[in-house]
């Protein structure tokens, strides 16, 4: 069983991993992408705070700087972690939907 605290669907770390699942992105691109798919506008401090934690946990890694921007990508460990968390969230959503329609 995964830690319940990690199942918050608005957790910035989770949102960033979902954003990076479609490919490497730099900070501003992640900000816009998260706003687009989750309707949540992350603050710049929140975004980089979460990004630094993900990097420290080995879930994302920086790529060489492009111009003034540094893109990041999911590591294999990050992809596994994201899979686990999405599967756990999906089970919760399915249970909730089933109970609501019962």
């Amino acid at each position, binding site marked *: 069983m995964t830690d319940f605290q990690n199942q918050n669907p608005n957790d910035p770390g989770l949102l960033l991993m979902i954003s990076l699942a479609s490919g490497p992105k730099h*900070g*501003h691109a992640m*900000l816009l992408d998260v706003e687009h798919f989750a309707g949540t506008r992350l*603050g*710049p*401090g*929140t*975004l*980089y*705070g979460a*990004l*630094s*934690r993900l990097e420290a946990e080995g879930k994302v890694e920086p790529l060489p700087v492009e111009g*003034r*921007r*540094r893109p990041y990508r999911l590591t294999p460990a990050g992809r596994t972690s994201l899979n686990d968390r999405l599967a756990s969230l999906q089970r919760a959503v399915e249970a909730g939907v089933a109970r609501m329609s019962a």
Partner: protein
Amino acid sequence: MTRLLLRFFPAAWRDRYGDELSDLVSETGVSPRVAADIARAGSAERIRAARVALKGGTSMIFAPAWRHPTAWAVAGAIVLVPTLTLVVLAALRTTVAPVDDLLNSQRYLDLALVLGPAFAALLAALPLVRIGFTHIDGGSEASLSVRLRAANVVVVVIGLGVASLLVGHILFESVMQIGA
């Protein structure tokens, strides 16, 4: 402005992510919401760094106001001025009716004036202290550095003196009231 806000984050964090965060802020713009977000995230990062250091993950130096000690002494002196003025007026047995009325009607203002000197002493004392946590040979070691700066020491001494005087005065009055 962004450089100032970045100071909420630990130095090591700023060295690694500071430029990237500054670039992002230059694209999003600085608003009160963005400033509050950076302050909150920076404070959280400092707490996280402190936790990691205490667990022996890295070395950490906690020196909240090591730079610009004179500015902190001046800030302490400014906080001290209202209470000190009232104490001097009281010592000279000079009363200013509007001030007396205001103090008597605003209980929390009175409390703020009593706590002011202690807060001023704290502000002036902050730049004099530096605490370090170092991870050595599997164990953690804490170190404390203290330095003396004339302006800060003067404000600390006056602040603590006035605070002690006021607390003593309050205790004396309380005892006298109970006795009566």
